[in-house]
């Protein structure tokens, strides 16, 4: 907001004396430097009127007073329009209201005899407390007053207050009044924390000033000093309660200027606590005593000035005590301030960005001040002493806090690397930083150049990889402005408002919340919780979350821009190509999964397939799912509903099954138990010959079940598993069992193959070769290997030579081919030549037109490398792929082949000959290249490839 020089104050008569009885206050409220204007003129005229027109009726008197009050507000509005500073107007209003209040009191006193009047004046006092005592008043603020009296005039004072209360009400003053003796006031303040905090500011308006002095002394001694810790805790608790009803979050988009987080009340909280410790609540005095740093003090004063002016504006425009900065008001004020539009940011968004930058600064300074001055109980101090221990040379660790002796501070906090080391330790030990450390970091950070070095990048990524306190640490880095030093782009989203009905928070707050929500998933028994726990590279997910909205505030689509920014940022952070790819992908597609999940038919295989193709790996999908859930939840309370959670979980399950060949893992234990029981029942005889035999059978079953892939276990019905195990148990070396079955409903034939381990090498490509040569169209397959290396494969095929039921004789014939093929009595090539047909194999043009894509994924599984192939289906495709894997010397542990329309998604879990996962980048690249090459060759030549 522009701060214009006040030139027009001389219009008011500044020569008037301050109202009677005004004494030096406990609060030397910062009133600026201008001479205090008073409403001398109106005050004088009111007095004249009240003396000359003693015959006026009560109604006329009320009317006259209301007009006078109206005049005060008009003057305030005029001052405001002329550009006076908020604090000047507040201070002027305070004086005007003092005078007005005193005048009403004097009017009431006229009904008392002169003796009574002087009795009252000598033995009681009208004292401004709270906001009035502070001397900061908005046009429609309540007046906080207290009457203090000597016990001996109790009757008189009770007569006075009985009369004066209606007079105040009639005059339009909303009064929070109390009547006490000095002793009584202190007792009440102990019982009523709200009164206690307002007694921090005391200013005599009328009467015997000694009483005010007594009140101050008694209050400080009995209520504050004698019970400092309780007083402080009461203040904090009261403030927390107030905040929870008026917005616990400072960046809620319609903040309360007085009560939300980072509002004026947080400055008051700081002042109350300062009073408890230093007997002053004046910001400048606190600075002089080195309790507030000069930066903090000036930041606070600027914030108070900004908020005060906004608050006065809100009051004047509403014509009542309105402290809520609603969206309509934001628009109005932004326009009145003539803020210009800049690219991608509306005036109202720029205004609110400034608003939030003030409120966030206030919140941070106040919270830090509070936590630093929070008293400790004797037991906790003892515990601290006992529990604390040194961490390396300088740090002390205790009760969830990392601290450092003041003498060490200059040694440990000079560079960005130092600072990140501190944060790193905090994240590692799962503790937060002491206020002292935060102050040191903040003041160092101010003078550091931005941009990470290799070492700071490493530290930052490690901090992001810690689970549990990552979000707390990042939030603290945000508070101390360290985050911008690592990611300069963060500066742009700080306090950035999105002016629409959907978002509840500014971009930075939204982002930090997303990170907190995301970490919270770790504890959640839900699909999202499981996905988060199973995510390997959590640091990449966390980084993507921090960056997902970084592109906001420009004209361009924020996903596109954000993706480019993420690329720069990742390169600066020295991530490798693979990691950069993941982060950029997540930022780029962060809206897509929700968009599809909530607006499209996610049971449609085409939607699932196309998006799987776009995502490309299970690990990326997992991260995108968690990011999407966190992003939607972070928009605001109540946005992530069970309805949305269900839809997204269902979509995730379908995508995950496509991409990894496995359904996502949750409730796995329970299912395993179920299978185990079923298999025990069918394999272990009801009445075993001996318990020993039964036990050894059970052990054998356990070993087998442990050895099977989770794919096989989740996909196969328990009776089938029992049957397979029965076969495996009786399998002799060299045995091959093929069981073919026609399923009338689906019109497909399933060939279930169980073969001794000697056939496992190359077995898969031989079976697919045989089936292809016999003109079977392979729709799907599940391939797994038992504990002892026994092949357990199922192929789902359509026998294209039969339009209806496939006769058993034909099935047996094909089964024989499979056996011959596995025994290598016949090669695929021979069979292709034998069953060759002319000109019947022309392939159709693909309907979906997705490009062929091969992904080698080393992130998803710990034991194997995953080769993922998306391709247009045509006869012989599976044979080509499996033969290529064989030629590459890869062994297939597990595979899932699926077809949607004419598009194939094949997932292979492969290892090298010795059963080791392939991780080398060169090797992965060569697998990918070789596969693409073979697929292109196949695309050109199709069948000719197999027979030549």
């Amino acid at each position: 907001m522009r701060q214009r020089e006040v030139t027009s104050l001389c219009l008011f008569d500044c020569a008037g004396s301050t109202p009677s009885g005004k004494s030096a206050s406990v609060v030397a409220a910062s009133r600026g430097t201008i001479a205090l204007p008073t409403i001398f003129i109106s005050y004088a005229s009111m007095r004249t009127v009240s003396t000359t027109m003693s015959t006026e009726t009560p109604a006329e008197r009320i009317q006259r007073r209301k007009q006078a009050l109206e005049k005060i507000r008009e003057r305030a509005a005029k001052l405001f329009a002329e550009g006076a500073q908020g604090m000047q107007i507040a201070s002027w209003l305070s004086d005007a209201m003092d005078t007005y209040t005193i005048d009403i009191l004097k009017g009431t006193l006229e009904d008392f005899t002169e003796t009574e009047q002087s009795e009252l004046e000598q033995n009681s006092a009208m004292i401004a407390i709270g906001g009035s005592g502070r001397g900061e008043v908005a046009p429609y603020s309540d007046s906080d007053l207290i009457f203090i009296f000597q016990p001996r005039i109790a009757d008189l004072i009770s007569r006075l207050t009985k009369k004066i209360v209606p007079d105040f009400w009639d005059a339009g003053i909303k009064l929070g009044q109390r009547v006490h003796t000095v002793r009584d006031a202190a007792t009440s303040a102990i019982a009523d924390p709200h009164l206690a905090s307002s007694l921090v500011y005391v200013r005599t308006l009328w009467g015997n000033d000694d009483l005010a002095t007594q009140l101050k002394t008694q209050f400080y001694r009995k209520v504050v000093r004698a019970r400092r810790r309780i007083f402080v805790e009461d203040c904090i608790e009261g403030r927390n309660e107030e905040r929870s009803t008026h917005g616990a979050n400072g960046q809620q988009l319609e903040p309360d200027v007085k009560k939300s987080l980072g509002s004026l009340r947080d400055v008051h909280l700081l002042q109350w606590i300062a009073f408890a410790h230093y007997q002053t609540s004046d910001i400048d005095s606190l600075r002089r005593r080195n309790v507030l740093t000069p930066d903090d003090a000036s930041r606070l004063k600027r914030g108070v000035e900004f908020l005060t002016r906004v608050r006065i504006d809100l009051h004047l425009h509403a014509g009542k005590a309105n402290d809520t900065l609603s969206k309509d008001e934001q628009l109005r004020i932004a326009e009145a301030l003539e803020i210009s539009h800049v690219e991608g940011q509306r005036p109202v968004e720029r205004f609110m960005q400034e608003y939030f930058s003030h409120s966030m600064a206030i919140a941070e300074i106040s919270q830090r001040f509070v936590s630093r001055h929070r008293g400790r109980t004797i037991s906790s101090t003892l515990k601290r002493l006992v529990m604390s221990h040194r961490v390396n040379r300088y740090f002390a660790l205790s009760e969830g806090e990392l601290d450092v002796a003041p003498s060490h501070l200059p040694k440990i906090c000079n560079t960005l690397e130092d600072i990140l080391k501190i944060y790193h330790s905090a994240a590692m030990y799962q503790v937060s930083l002491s206020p002292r450390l935060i102050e040191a970091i903040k003041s160092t950070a101010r003078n550091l150049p931005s941009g990470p070095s290799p070492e700071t990048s490493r530290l930052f990524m490690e901090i992001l990889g810690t689970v549990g306190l990552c979000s707390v640490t990042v939030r603290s880095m945000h508070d101390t402005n360290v985050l911008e030093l690592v990611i300069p782009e963060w500066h742009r989203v700080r306090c950035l408002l999105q002016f629409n009905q959907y978002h509840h928070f500014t971009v930075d707050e939204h982002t930090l919340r997303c990170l907190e929500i995301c970490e919270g998933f770790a504890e959640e028994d839900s699909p999202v919780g499981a996905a988060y726990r199973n995510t390997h590279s959590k640091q990449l997910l966390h980084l993507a979350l921090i960056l997902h909205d970084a592109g906001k505030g420009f004209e361009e689509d924020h996903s596109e821009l954000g993706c480019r920014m993420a690329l720069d940022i990742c390169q600066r952070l020295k991530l490798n190509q693979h990691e950069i790819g993941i982060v950029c992908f997540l930022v780029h597609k962060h809206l897509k999964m929700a968009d599809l999940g909530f607006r499209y038919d996610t049971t449609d295989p085409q939607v699932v397939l196309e998006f799987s193709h776009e995502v490309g790996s299970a690990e990326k999908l997992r991260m995108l799912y968690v990011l999407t859930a966190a992003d939607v939840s972070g928009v605001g309370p109540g946005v992530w509903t069970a309805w949305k959670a269900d839809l997204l979980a269902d979509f995730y399950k379908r995508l995950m099954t496509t991409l990894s060949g496995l359904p996502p893992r949750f409730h796995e234990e329970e299912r395993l138990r179920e299978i185990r029981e079923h298999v025990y029942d069918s394999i272990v005889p009801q009445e075993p010959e001996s318990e020993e035999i039964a036990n050894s059978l059970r052990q054998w079953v356990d070993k087998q079940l442990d050895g099977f892939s989770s794919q096989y276990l989740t996909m196969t019905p328990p009776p089938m598993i029992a049957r397979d195990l029965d076969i495996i148990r009786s399998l002799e070396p060299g045995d091959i069992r093929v069981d073919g079955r026609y399923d009338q409903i689906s019109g497909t034939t399933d060939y279930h193959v169980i073969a001794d381990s000697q056939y496992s090498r190359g077995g898969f490509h031989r079976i697919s070769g045989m089936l292809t040569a016999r003109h079977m169209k392979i729709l799907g397959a599940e391939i797994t290997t038992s504990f002892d290396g026994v092949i357990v494969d199922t192929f789902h095929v359509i026998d294209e030579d039969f339009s209806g039921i496939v006769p058993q004789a034909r099935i047996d014939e094909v089964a024989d081919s499979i056996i011959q093929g596995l025994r290598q009595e016949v090669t695929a090539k021979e069979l292709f030549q034998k069953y060759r047909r002319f000109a019947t194999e022309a392939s159709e043009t693909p309907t979906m037109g997705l490009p062929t894509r091969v992904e080698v994924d080393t992130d998803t599984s710990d034991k194997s490398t995953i080769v993922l192939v998306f391709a247009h289906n045509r006869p012989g495709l599976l044979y080509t792929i499996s033969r290529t894997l064989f030629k590459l010397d890869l062994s297939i542990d597990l595979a899932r082949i699926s077809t949607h329309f004419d598009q194939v998604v094949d997932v292979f879990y492969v290892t090298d000959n010795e059963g080791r996962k392939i991780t080398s980048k060169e090797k992965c690249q060569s697998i990918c290249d070789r596969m693409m090459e073979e697929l292109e060759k196949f695309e050109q030549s199709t069948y000719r490839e197999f027979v030549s």
Partner: protein
Amino acid sequence: MKKIEAIIRHYKLEEVKNGLNEIGIQGMTVTEVRGFGRQRGHKEVYRGAEYTVDFLPKVKLELVVSEDDAGKAIEKITEVARTGNIGDGKIFVTDLSEVIRIRTGETGGEAL
């Protein structure tokens, strides 16, 4: 006046909304709901493991129209929301005795 409540598939919402706009019906209330009818939490044989989803996510659309428009609106919703499969949803129609626009106090057809 008639009150029309339609339970439809969530992804049909945009289409239904646009369809209704085309025939001149504008105001409506949309709620995310979960429930089941004959589709009864599709018992999915999911890789051998049978599991039941009790409540399926749907969208509830509520609109109030004049007697004249009711037929058109129902026809439009039926046409657009239909896929032909179980789970397409249902439309409930009730007679409505009064509508009041809070801001102006207008009643009946005026308030629609």
